[in-house]
């Protein structure tokens, strides 16, 4: 039975487990390696690890995966948007930027990925670029001194690029 719609290559997961000798003490490293492949943790992958590794179970793997903020249980969009909400960015107006993105992409409270699968949104605590606050990262690109208008333009550009393709 499949719990998610991503097709999983379980042989790739076997390789990860072999690399970490099926030891439960490497669980976090295993999960990181899985997330590296899928950009999130598919449910079946967590179940598989829970079944294959001694002294783990699907529920305990899920417990670790949901404990740490670094793991995502939802598929990520093609464009991963990270809005910095560290102290500097916050006081310089990261929240209006975040809300502008939510409105633009129709991401209601709690929803992380847009319906078309293009964008996913999260806040992060500090990107280490406080001098450029407020900062937004889209995939690997840093966008400094954001405003609601500026981020709208950037998203429009990305959207029209996507439509043009």
């Amino acid at each position, binding site marked *: *039975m*499949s*719990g998610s719609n991503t097709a*999983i290559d*379980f042989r790739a*997961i076997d390789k990860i487990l072999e690399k970490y000798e099926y030891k439960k003490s490497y669980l976090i490293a295993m999960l990181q390696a899985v997330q590296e492949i899928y950009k999130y943790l598919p*449910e*079946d*992958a*967590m*179940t*598989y690890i*829970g*079944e294959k590794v001694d002294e*783990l*179970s*699907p*529920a*305990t*793997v*899920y*417990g670790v995966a*949901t*404990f740490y903020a670094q793991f995502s249980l939802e598929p990520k969009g093609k464009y991963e948007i990270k809005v910095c909400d560290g102290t500097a960015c916050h006081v310089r107006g990261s929240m209006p930027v975040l809300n502008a993105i939510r409105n633009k992409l129709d991401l209601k409270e709690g929803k992380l990925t847009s319906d078309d699968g293009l964008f996913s949104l999260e806040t992060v605590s500090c990107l280490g670029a406080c001098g450029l606050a407020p900062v937004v990262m889209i995939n690997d690109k840093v966008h400094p001194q954001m405003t609601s208008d500026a981020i709208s333009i950037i998203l429009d550009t990305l959207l029209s690029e996507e439509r043009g393709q």
Partner: protein
Amino acid sequence: MTEDKKSLFIEGKEVEFTNEPNLLEVIRKAGMNVPTFCYRPDLTSFGACRMCVVEVEYPNGRKMINSSCTMPPEAGIKVKLNTEKTRRIRKTVLQLLLANHDRKCLTCERSGNCELQQYAEEYGITDIPYAEKDDFLPVDHSSPSIVRDANKCILCGACVRACSEYQHSVLGFANRGSKTLVQPMNGKPLANSECVNCGQCAAVCPTGALTINSQIEKVWKEITNPEKKVVVQFAPSVRVAIGEMFGLEPGVNSTEKINAALRAIGFDLVFDTNFSADLTIMEEAAEFVERVKSGKNLPLFTSCCPAWVRYLELEHPDMKEHLSTCKSPQGMMGAIIREYVPKYYEDITPENLVSVSIMPCTAKKYEATREQFKMENGKQEIDYVLTTQELGKMIKSAGIDFKNIEGQPADTPFGKYTGAGTIFGVSGGVAEAAARTAYNMVTGEELKDVVINDMRGTHRVKTVELDLKGTKIKVKIVNTLKEAEKCLREIKEGKADYQLLEVMACPGGCINGGGQPLSHNDSNIKEERAQGLYTDDATGQWRKSHENPEIIDLYKNHLEKPNSHKAHELLHTSYSDKRKDCYISAGE
């Protein structure tokens, strides 16, 4: 003072201690107590609830507050249990727990025996200075055995520890901080999870977060329907535990009181599952002797524990051929009742017959729903399964004075039992009972010393060698699936040298089943219940299943001999690969 005998002071009283694992045990040994939600003597200490805090003063004058369940006892310390500070801490803990708790106590399954309710009353919590929450999570009613209501969970983690230390970690903590939940993988319904329905989670839960899926009202409806004839059976372990709900000591044998109480409630016929335990031994011993002769599918696995059977079908379906094909005693009695009761009692017909069983076990509720126990008309052989706890509630609601009710015998012809049948309820009992009859089957002689002491005791692993006059047999007896898993690996690796593996999923066996009266903080209770069964064995008229006169009659009149065609039709079953029905098969 010698080195291994040290002492400390509790409320000014000098108390000696030796190897107690924590201060709380020393406090209890001294006849005092502190409240706790998360401490369970049979599980590892967790220190989650902070209710057992005490004030400790060291010999150097340093004072501190510590949770007594996680603190090792130290010589010379002065411990105060009820100070202004410790009481204030406990009250705050209670208020905070209640702030987050579904407060519909009146309609809660655990109302009256909820530890949160009890401590809230004892600590005079008449006011909760926090608003009641209004967003409730859905309650999981999917399992035939267990109901999970996260709104009543206080995150003490007792169930998570029970599930991981006894079985295979179906329940776990998910998320963190205020969003923490106890649930199966990704909040899946219990029925679709790899849960084996043992009920040990509900047995350690201090609140109504994990409860037994009750069928009391459905059974009352059948009993009060004049059209229906309700036939009931009750299991070995029920008789030595139910008394606890009525002020009797654990281990007191209430067989005849139960017969009387069941009739007083309105059940039409009362049979004893001990009888079908004897029947199970006849079939299983014959099957065992056969397998030893042929050498096929050894070791033979006992099949009386439905949690164990489900575990094997889920986690090791490739080994299901090892399982005895014998139905459990509940299953055998279910079949016998359907087949023969209408023949013996003319007012009972296949149409008006309702079959109920009383079990110490929540997994028996699941067992009764197995597709193998479906009859041709689409109904299940056993209609309802109640636990010991549920029977206790029915007796109370019927207004029966259980403690003083005059005992009665069970009905014929399935009401007599031997000592071999009664010890089925304790880990090692099935093997001991089987040995008594197998000896007779192999040698043609009667075993003189029927008590096999090495098979007794509630500890987790026992290995016993038997000599059936030249035929050497090795038996391994384990309880908890955690231990069973180790045996299965031994067998797969070719390291197992035993021919019989007895498994019970609950620690100590059925006497400590998930449906038994709650005994959260006393791990001696299961020993006393076990002793109750051994006493029943020692004082009964017969001690070997093949001596039971009603068993002899059943074979003479109907079944011919063990493992006959008719016996196979009625008393044996099959197993299936359940793995593919569950998410745990991901990637296969």
